[in-house]
C-alpha cells in the first residue's frame, strides 16, 4: 500500500460509512425503475442468490477456514425441501421457509459432526464426495425427487387485502425479495463476524492449536460455523426453488460448488462486500461474454487468471490491512498502550 493510496483511503473515510450503505441500497431499490428488462433482472436475481450462498460459504470457509467443495449439496437441501413439501404436502412458499433452513442446517450438522474431525484438504475432498453423493442421490431417488425430470413447484404469492398477488415468472418481485434476503443475510453475517463467535472462528482459522489453548471450544465452534453456513445455503435454496418454479439435479453439480468457492476467493475471504461483488461479477461477466459464443469459457478463464495475478488476496481481501489504519482502532491501540504502561509502572 503506497502513501497516496492511504491518503485516498483516508479521504473516502470522511464520508460516513452508513451514508454510503444507504445510498447503495437506494440505488439498488430504485434500479428496476430505470431498467425494466426482464433478462437483466433475472441475471441480477441469480447473482443475488449466489451472493447469499457466498455469504454462507464465507461463514464456513472465510471465517472458520473450513474448505467446502460440496456446498451445492446444502443449497440443494433447501431447494428440494421446499419442492417436496410443496408438491407432496401442498405447503406454501412462506410456510416452508423455516423447514428449508432447518433441514439444510440439520443436514450440515449431521454431516459436519462426522466430517469435521478431518482437516484441510481432507475435509475438502470429503465435502466434494458428499456433494456428488447428494446430486446422484437426487437423480436416482425418482419416487421422492422426481429423478432427472425434477419437480415443478409453485411460485410464491402474496395475500394483500382483497387481492392475491402471484409472483409468477415476472422477475421484478423476485428482485425485491432477493434484495431483502441479501440484506437479512448481510445483517446476520456481519453481526456474527463481530460477535464472540466470529472472533473465535477467525482465531481457529489462523491457528487452531493456539485457539484451543486460549480456551476456545474449537470442535463445537467449527460445527456451529458449518451448521450456520449450511442453513444459509438452505435459505438460498428456498429462494431459488421459489423463483425457478422448478428444481432438478443439474442445478446442484460440482461446478456450482467450485464457482461458489471461486467467488469467495475472488471477492476476498472473509469480506462481506467482497462476497457480494464477486457473486455479481462472476455471474455477470459470463453473460457479458455471451457474444463470444463457444469461445466464452476461454475468455472467462483468462479473466479469472488475470484478476488473481493482479489481486491474489481477492478484490476486497485487503480489508484487514486497512483496519490497522482506522482511527477507531488507532484510538483503541493508544488506550491499550496507556493501560499497558500503567501496568508496567506498578
Amino acid at each position: 500500500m503506497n502513501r497516496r493510496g492511504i491518503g485516498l483511503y483516508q479521504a473516502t473515510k470522511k464520508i460516513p460509512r452508513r451514508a454510503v450503505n444507504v445510498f447503495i441500497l437506494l440505488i439498488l431499490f430504485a434500479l428496476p425503475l430505470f431498467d425494466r428488462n426482464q433478462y437483466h433482472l433475472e441475471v441480477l436475481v441469480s447473482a443475488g442468490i449466489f451472493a447469499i450462498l457466498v455469504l454462507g460459504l464465507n461463514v464456513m470457509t472465510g471465517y472458520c477456514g473450513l474448505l467446502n467443495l460440496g456446498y451445492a449439496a446444502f443449497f440443494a437441501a433447501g431447494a428440494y425441501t421446499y419442492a417436496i413439501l410443496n408438491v407432496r404436502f401442498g405447503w406454501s412458499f412462506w410456510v416452508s421457509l423455516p423447514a428449508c433452513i432447518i433441514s439444510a442446517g440439520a443436514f450440515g450438522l449431521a454431516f459436519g459432526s462426522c466430517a469435521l474431525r478431518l482437516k484441510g484438504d481432507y475435509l475438502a475432498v470429503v465435502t466434494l464426495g458428499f456433494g456428488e453423493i447428494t446430486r446422484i442421490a437426487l437423480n436416482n431417488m425418482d419416487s421422492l425427487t422426481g429423478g432427472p425430470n425434477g419437480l415443478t413447484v409453485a411460485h410464491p404469492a402474496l395475500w394483500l387485502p382483497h387481492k392475491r398477488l402471484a409472483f409468477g415468472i415476472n422477475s421484478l418481485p423476485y428482485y425485491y425479495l432477493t434484495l431483502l434476503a441479501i440484506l437479512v443475510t448481510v445483517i446476520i453475517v456481519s453481526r456474527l463476524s463481530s460477535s464472540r463467535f466470529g472472533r473465535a472462528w477467525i482465531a481457529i482459522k489462523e491457528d487452531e492449536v493456539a485457539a484451543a489453548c486460549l480456551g476456545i471450544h474449537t470442535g463445537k465452534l467449527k460445527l456451529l460455523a458449518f451448521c450456520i453456513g449450511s442453513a444459509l445455503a438452505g435459505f438460498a435454496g428456498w429462494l431459488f426453488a421459489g423463483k425457478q418454479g422448478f428444481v432438478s439435479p443439474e442445478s446442484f453439480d460440482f461446478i456450482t460448488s467450485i464457482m461458489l468457492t471461486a467467488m469467495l476467493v475472488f471477492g476476498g475471504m472473509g469480506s462481506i462486500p467482497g462476497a457480494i461483488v464477486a457473486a455479481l461479477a462472476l455471474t455477470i461477466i459470463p453473460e457479458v461474454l455471451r457474444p463470444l459464443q463457444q469461445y466464452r469459457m476461454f475468455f472467462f478463464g483468462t479473466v479469472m487468471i488475470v484478476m488473481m495475478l493482479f489481486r491474489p488476496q481477492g478484490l476486497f481481501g485487503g480489508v484487514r490491512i486497512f483496519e490497522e489504519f482506522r482511527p477507531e482502532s488507532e484510538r483503541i491501540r493508544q488506550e491499550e498502550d496507556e493501560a499497558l504502561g500503567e501496568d508496567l509502572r506498578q
Partner: protein
Amino acid sequence: MSPLETFIQQLINGLVIGMIYALIALGYTMVYGIIQLINFAHGEIFITGAFIGLAVFGALPGALGLGNLWALVLMFALAMAGCGLLGVLIERVAYRPLRKSPRLACLITAIGVSFILQNVLMLIWGPVDKSFPVFFKHSALTFGAFRVTFMQSFIVISSLVMMLVLHFFIRRTMLGKALRAASEDMTAARLMGINVERIISVCFLIGSALGGAGGLMYGMYYNTITFHDGYLAGIKAFTAAVLGGIGNVPGAMLGGVALGMMEGLGAGYLSSEWKNVFAFLILIILLLRWPSGILGKFRHE
C-alpha cells in the same frame, strides 16, 4: 459363468481402471506434496495427452510408414513430452507468480486454466466424441469363463513399469533426493543449495507427463475421447490421491487401485447407477478411520 469367475472378472475390471486413476493421481500427489496445491487443471492435462496421441496417430505414422508398434512408441513419447511441457508452462504462468499469495488464490487460477484448456480442446477437435484408433482389437487371454484382453494387460504392465521407474527416480537419484528434501521442508532445502523452483518445475513435468500417458491409455482402452473427459477422471483421481494419503507417491498408486476396485465391485454387485456414490461413500468412511489417507502421515497444520 460361475459366481467366483464373475468376481475375478470384476476385480480385473477394477484393477485396470484403477491403474489409470493411479497414473493421474500421481500428478496430483506430486504437486501437492511439494507446494500443497490442488492442481485442478490436471484432469485437463490428462485428457490433452489422449488428444496429442490422436493427433500424432493421425499425422505421423502414415506419412512415415511406421508400423503399429512404432506408432505407439511415438504416440507415448510425444503425448508425455507435450503434457509435461504443458504442465511446466501452466505452473510458470498461473501458479509461480502466486507462490507467496494465499493458498486458495492458486485454486482460482487452476480453475481458470482448466476452463481455458477445455475450451481450446473443444475448439481444436470439436465438441463431438472422437473415435480413437484400436490397437489390440478384442483379442484376449481366456481363463475359464473370464477374460483379460491384451489392452487390459498392456495398461496394467505399462503403468506398473512407469510407477517403478518413478519410484526408482525418487528413491535413487540425486534429483529425486532433492525432490524429497523440498517436499519435506522447502526452506531447509533452499538453504542446502537446492534450486527449489527447478524442483517444482520437475514435479510438474513428471506429474503431467504421467498424466498424459494415463490419458493416452484411457483413449486406447475406451476408444472414445471428448474434451470434457478430464473432469470426471480428474475428480476420481484426486479422490484416489487423497484416499492413499495426498503427497505420498505409493499412496497414490494404492489409492487409485483401491478406488477402481471399490467402485467396480459396488457397481457390479449392487447398482451401477450408484457407482460414484459407492466410491465417495467408501472414501468418506476410510478417511474417517484414517484421517490422513491410508498411507499418509499425520501432519499438523
